């Protein structure tokens, strides 16, 4: 659990660092998520006040973009590419395998909190698919064996 004092202080610092920039909200939200791992509900009002907009507007932006989480993710985040170029080289079968093996569907976290599985639509690795982003690290030419190896390393 985040303690309120830390949340308030860090949110203030992050807002202050971006104030005066044109269109500061996205850079602020990126920093908030980098800091806390998600965008806690408790900091929305504070961000709204800093930017002189309504809390509803901040919520609207957070909920619009796929990147921003409203809840913490698992300890590891696997983003598997679902886009066409990866589909052409077996991404659908690979993601079916990953979902079965982890026992979760898209956007879900394993019960032990270790892995969150998410789709991503293109990582720009389209001539060496299937591709994935594992804890922010790019990987490509995936198959079930390579995925097993990655999952083994994460556990």
């Amino acid at each position, binding site marked *: 659990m985040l303690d309120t004092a830390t949340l308030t202080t860090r949110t203030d610092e992050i807002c202050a660092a971006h104030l005066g920039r*044109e*269109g*500061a*909200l*996205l*850079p602020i*939200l*990126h920093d908030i998520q980098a800091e806390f791992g998600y965008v806690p509900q408790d900091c929305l009002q504070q961000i709204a006040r800093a*930017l002189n907009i309504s809390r509803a*507007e901040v919520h*609207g*932006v957070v909920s*619009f*973009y*796929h*990147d*921003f989480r409203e809840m913490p993710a698992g300890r590891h985040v696997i983003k598997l590419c679902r*886009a*066409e*170029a*990866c*589909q*052409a*080289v077996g991404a659908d079968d690979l993601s079916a395998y990953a979902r079965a093996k982890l026992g979760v569907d898209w956007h879900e976290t394993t019960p032990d909190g270790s892995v969150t599985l998410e789709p*991503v*639509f*293109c*990582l*720009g*690795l*389209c*001539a*060496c*698919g299937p*591709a994935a*982003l594992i804890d*922010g690290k*790019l*990987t*490509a*030419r995936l198959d079930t064996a390579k995925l097993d190896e990655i999952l083994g390393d994460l556990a």
Partner: protein
Amino acid sequence: MKIYLPLDSVAVALGADDLAAAITAHASKTGVQVELIRNGSRGMVWLEPLIEIEAPEGRIGFGPMTLADIPALFADLAQHPKAVGLVEALPWMAGQTRLTFARCGVIDPLNFNDFNANDGFAGLARALDMTSSDIVAEVTASGLRGRGGAGFPTGIKWKTVAEAKAAQKYIVCNADEGDSATFADRMIMEGDPLTLIEGMAIAGLATGATKGFVYIRSEYPIAIDIMQKAVLLARVNGVLGASVMGRGPAFDMEIRVGAGAYVCGEETSLLNSLEGKRGVVRAKPPLPALQGFMGLPTVVNNVISLASIPVIMAKGAAHYAAIGLGRSRGTIPLQIAGNVKYGGLFEVGFGLTLGQIVDDIAGGTATGRPVKAVQVGGPLGAYFPRALFDTPFGYEEFAGKEGLIGHAGLTVFDDSADMLAQARFAMEFCAIESCGKCTPCRIGAVRGVETVDRIAKGDTAAIPLLTDLCATMKSGSLCALGGFTPYPVLSALNHFPADFARTKEAVE
């Protein structure tokens, strides 16, 4: 020994950082002096990670490299099992007309002197000696059209912004390259970022804009990192700042990061996102050129459009315009992806046929099975069957076949592809990524998935319904997301009817 190893996302995804560590470790163990340069990618993805070693006759390539192949780099190179010969002489490289990507893979992307020594800033230097209207005229004469997919003449867009009266104008670079099969923007930002900065500075001179933004998608962590470093480098060296190269007007820029919304690749949605709002599409007019970022005149150009400006200015509009086909002038970086034997980036003048690209350059499928379909132009592009492989690569030529070239990405599928499933995915993707502003896109895409599912269950009565829905989405949507989703759906239906002819008995 001078060794080149790409820092490009492809190479890194395939283990380049581990290879770099192994090279350093092996060099210190054997006492060999090694200068390791992390370059961009040459675009030959099947050879990645591709290591190059400088030799008197040129750079010799080795790939695809694995950790086990590293020690042999320190022995007799002619005997190396992964040697591919002189990189520049490989058919893939020799067959290209590299203008925009001339330096990509050649230089150290973050070495200012390296960029300068390889014709960097030649275009900007020339632009600084010209009037803004002459720069606009030069870009117009080159015939350059928006490489993001819309194909709007870049010079005309610039002219509109140049003639607009405002205290502040902006150059916004659209680096939200979300289309599957496209990676040219990523490659140039990682492999030659100063070219993009140079192009944006020229756009500033031409239009009177003093501030630029590059909006990069968050799925490109390496491109974001390199671009941020390149902007600092350009600022420290006086290219950007209070006076461009110390003798022009002010121009500076910032890197901004998207947040995983495909629709933000649409220019008005991107502008809203950049302003810190939901990435909802704006109705046009007003044009962004007149009321763009913060309601002020704004050039919104794709990465490749802007990165092509320096070479156009350096070599002259006539040189660029002499290449190409019909109204598609200059070169296009083809991005060949999916199930292909030889995939990657191939920059060439417009005009090759789809068949030449798929069969000759890409060498057919990686699986060795027959090519069934090629999706050209990303998730909003049409699926082309072999019967249309004689279509020449050009804006009008593809439009004439109910398709589009988009950002010039090509995804090849072999005969195991199920085109009904691909049509369903197109609708599903549109439903996931719709910004929600207009009804044909927001509701139509959901109904589209349901309708394709009915067809999959053998309900042939749903086929005319799907066609009708596509007509509504095509003419009734505000932007290309809802408006172009019918391209993959209808092309799948029209060119591959067998995949949609499912009998109820077979399904049950």
